[in-house]
């Protein structure tokens, strides 16, 4: 493609015999938003690193940027050609101001020794103007909400003469409003002739923002086209190589006595007047925009975030839950959103991760741990949850995302919970493994456990719940029956009554 801004041909990369990338071609035009889609391990991040010059492809590769030809790049060359990567962690300096964060790269590049606040402010103002947004130059970046930090990162990427902006999962911590704003900025950049390579996995967003899409699977590129040439099911099929069907969940649950009842729960600044009931065997989906207070609510139920007022009743009896230990003793367990930092001890073995919740129950004579019981616990869960691992003594960090999530489930299931709160149970899990985890969740519900499933993905909630609660700005907006609700209906309802800040 001659008018392409970036043209990659025959990019291959192997690590220790494993092909991370095999003969991948990719082309990007200026003024285009191109989405790169793929499961974990498909090679997306490796491809980005090749473009950014952080990783060198194997010989035979051809990288053409604005007509200039390279067989490989290094970071400096890549940046000089206008390639800017915004990593998921944003790489900002929390202790420096917005102006400093935006301007610092340019100052470095220009080899400046001295800086003046007015200079940095000028650079920052120009970038902000180009992006078309507003920022307080003197605010400390660490004190800004994530969405604003992202905007700062985008402004920064423009200052160095960024012509191709690569965004790695930019929407993972953004709420609907912020996503809209981000997309408007991306469209703005598009109009100014910038090329945007958007790596994502939230299919809705991809369909919303992309002009063209490329799908990677197992290191090979399996598809490139205009976005309009596909629908979602086809895209999923391309990504996974399988046909995934999402059918509505129809199993029954008992509506006799509520397992968990929440009345008028409030916490200043987080949520207010929340009331709902959860029945045994029910999967109650809770979804809403980020910032709507869902995780805060969940943490309140789990004892880590005591509410200001309201009642929590378990089995009809009022409880005060002041600590995680108390929650667990009442049969309420919480599978956290961020399993890497909140749910798992990455360096420790599977065994140590699984037994941590019941560690005090495993003490036998003289307070010593019962090794035989530990072994049997591990064996049970590895089998039941189909955790793919040669042994329980493997360090958890060596497992895939799906298997890691199973370990987290195992550790809580060992506690024999009656109420299980799942916060984003399939985040960072491949589409294929997602399905399997949904099956696990459903089987748990069939055993009589009451499940509160919190999720960002309306599709997940629509397909796997009995009832759905929509949460907005800290309040339960609406309760829906999952049977008659589609994903788009949910999204529309969440978009309703949106207050502009």
């Amino acid at each position, binding site marked *: 493609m001659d008018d392409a801004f970036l043209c990659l041909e025959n990019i291959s990369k192997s690590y220790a015999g494993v092909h991370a990338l095999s003969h991948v071609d990719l082309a990007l035009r200026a003024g285009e938003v191109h989405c790169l889609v793929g499961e974990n391990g498909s090679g997306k991040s490796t491809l980005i690193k090749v473009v950014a010059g952080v990783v060198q492809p194997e010989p035979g590769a051809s990288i053409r940027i604005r007509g200039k030809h390279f067989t490989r790049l290094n970071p400096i060359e890549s940046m000089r050609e206008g390639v800017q990567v915004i990593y998921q962690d944003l790489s900002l300096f929390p202790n420096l101001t917005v102006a400093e964060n935006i301007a610092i790269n340019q100052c470095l590049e220009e080899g400046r020794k001295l800086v003046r606040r007015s200079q940095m402010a000028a650079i920052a103002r120009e970038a902000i103007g180009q992006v078309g947004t507003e920022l307080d130059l003197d605010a400390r970046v660490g004190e800004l909400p994530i969405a604003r930090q992202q905007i700062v990162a985008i402004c920064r990427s423009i200052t160095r003469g960024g012509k191709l902006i690569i965004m790695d999962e930019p929407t993972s911590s953004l709420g609907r409003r912020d996503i809209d704003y981000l997309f408007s900025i991306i469209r703005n950049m598009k109009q100014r002739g910038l090329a945007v390579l958007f790596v994502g996995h939230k299919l809705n967003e991809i369909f919303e923002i992309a002009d063209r899409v490329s799908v990677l699977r197992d290191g090979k590129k399996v598809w490139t086209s205009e976005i309009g040439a596909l629908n979602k099911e086809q895209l999923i099929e391309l990504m996974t190589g399988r046909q995934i069907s999402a059918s509505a969940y129809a199993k029954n649950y008992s509506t006799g006595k509520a397992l968990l009842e929440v009345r008028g729960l409030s916490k200043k600044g987080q949520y207010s007047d929340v009331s709902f009931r959860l029945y045994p065997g029910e999967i109650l989906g809770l979804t809403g925009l980020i910032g709507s207070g869902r995780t805060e609510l969940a943490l309140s139920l789990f004892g880590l975030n005591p509410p200001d007022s309201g009642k929590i009743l378990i089995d009809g009896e009022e409880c005060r839950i002041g600590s995680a230990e108390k929650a667990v003793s009442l049969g309420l367990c919480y599978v956290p959103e961020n399993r890497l930092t909140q749910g798992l001890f990455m360096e*420790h073995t599977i065994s140590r991760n699984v037994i941590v919740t019941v560690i005090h129950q495993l003490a036998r004579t003289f307070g010593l741990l019962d090794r035989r019981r530990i072994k049997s616990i591990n064996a049970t869960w590895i089998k039941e949850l189909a955790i793919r691992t040669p042994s329980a003594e493997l360090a958890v960090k060596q497992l895939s995302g799906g298997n890691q999530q199973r370990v987290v489930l195992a550790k809580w299931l060992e506690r024999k919970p009656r109420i299980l709160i799942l916060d984003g149970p399939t985040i960072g899990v491949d589409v294929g493994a997602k399905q399997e985890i949904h099956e696990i969740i459903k089987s748990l519900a069939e055993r009589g456990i009451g499940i509160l499933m919190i999720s960002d993905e309306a599709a997940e909630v629509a397909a796997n719940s009995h009832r759905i609660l929509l949460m907005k700005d800290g309040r339960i907006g609406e309760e829906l029956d999952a049977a008659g609700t589609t994903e788009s209906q949910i999204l529309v309802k969440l978009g309703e009554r949106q207050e502009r800040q």
Partner: protein
Amino acid sequence: MPSDTSSRKRRAVALSARSATYIIAFIVVFAVLAILQPTRFLSRTNIQQMAFQLPEFGVLALAMMVAMLSGGIDLSITFNTNLSGIVSALVLLALAYGGSVDFKSLLQGIMAEGVAPPATAIPSAGIAMLGIVLLTVLTAMAVSGLCGLLNGMLVAKVKIPPILATLGTMKLYEGISLVITRGSPITNFPKPFLFIGSGTLLHIPFPLIVFAVCTAFVSVFLRRTPLGFSIYAVGENPVAARFSGLHNESILMKTYLVTGLLVGVAAVLMITRVDSVKVGYGNSYLLQAVMVVILGGVSDRGGSGTVLGVVFGILILRMISSGFNIIGFSNDFRNVIWGSMLVLVTIVNYAVPVIAERLKARR
């Protein structure tokens, strides 16, 4: 599980690989010293001296290990040793000579200039003495335990970073010790008390027995009890620990308490070996303790490490120290070597995993 035997085998191999390194290092150091100075290094007096001095340091190292496993560090252990030694020494003197000496004047005497009980003082004996010795030991552990608890509170409840918290308490304990003693030593303890640090049982130095008991206790504690397990968990990932229902605050407090209790044992061993206690004794042990713990595989962020590794580190270090004694290195040159070793050990600790990963990636 069919793969259980293979995993057991794999673990055994990994463990023995580690142990092999330790054993090899131990043999190498031993051999070098034995070859360089066979008559003096292998002499009975020398081995005996090592056997008597090693335990006090060993227990301190174990104390430091527990603290570092939790992701923290305890810089106050040496002055904690001094303080608990001083207080328990006072208690001992008060009780042992209580009958024949006016305690008030004794205390004043201490405050004025170092103290030894006057020649005319007659210590109690027999069962009463045994009881007094026991009480003294308990006092030492009580004081050191309280100091540890203070550390624990500052780290767990007030949430001060352990380096800063124990830096502060280190100064505090030094200060209190200074106020009590003005820097003078307390000496001349009753013989039965000194048995703990200088006596032998069945030809084995008693302190060595104490050290072995402590080692066994710490090992079982860390590997086989819920609290020990929790310490590793909190050190590895305090956020996940909290989310798993563990009580980080209480775990951390107990961690520093355990460290404190061990420090008390070390204190008793120290003062009964040299028959005196003074502010500043054992200061050089701090750096060595950190080194030994790192040698034993505990990273500075905690969450992993074995008692076996630490014990080997202790053995190796004491042999080297004894070697220094024999060769006649000055105190200052020894410090140079300790410092260099600490740096070297840390480098190896950090460089080895990186090299190992690179080798793995290449394969």
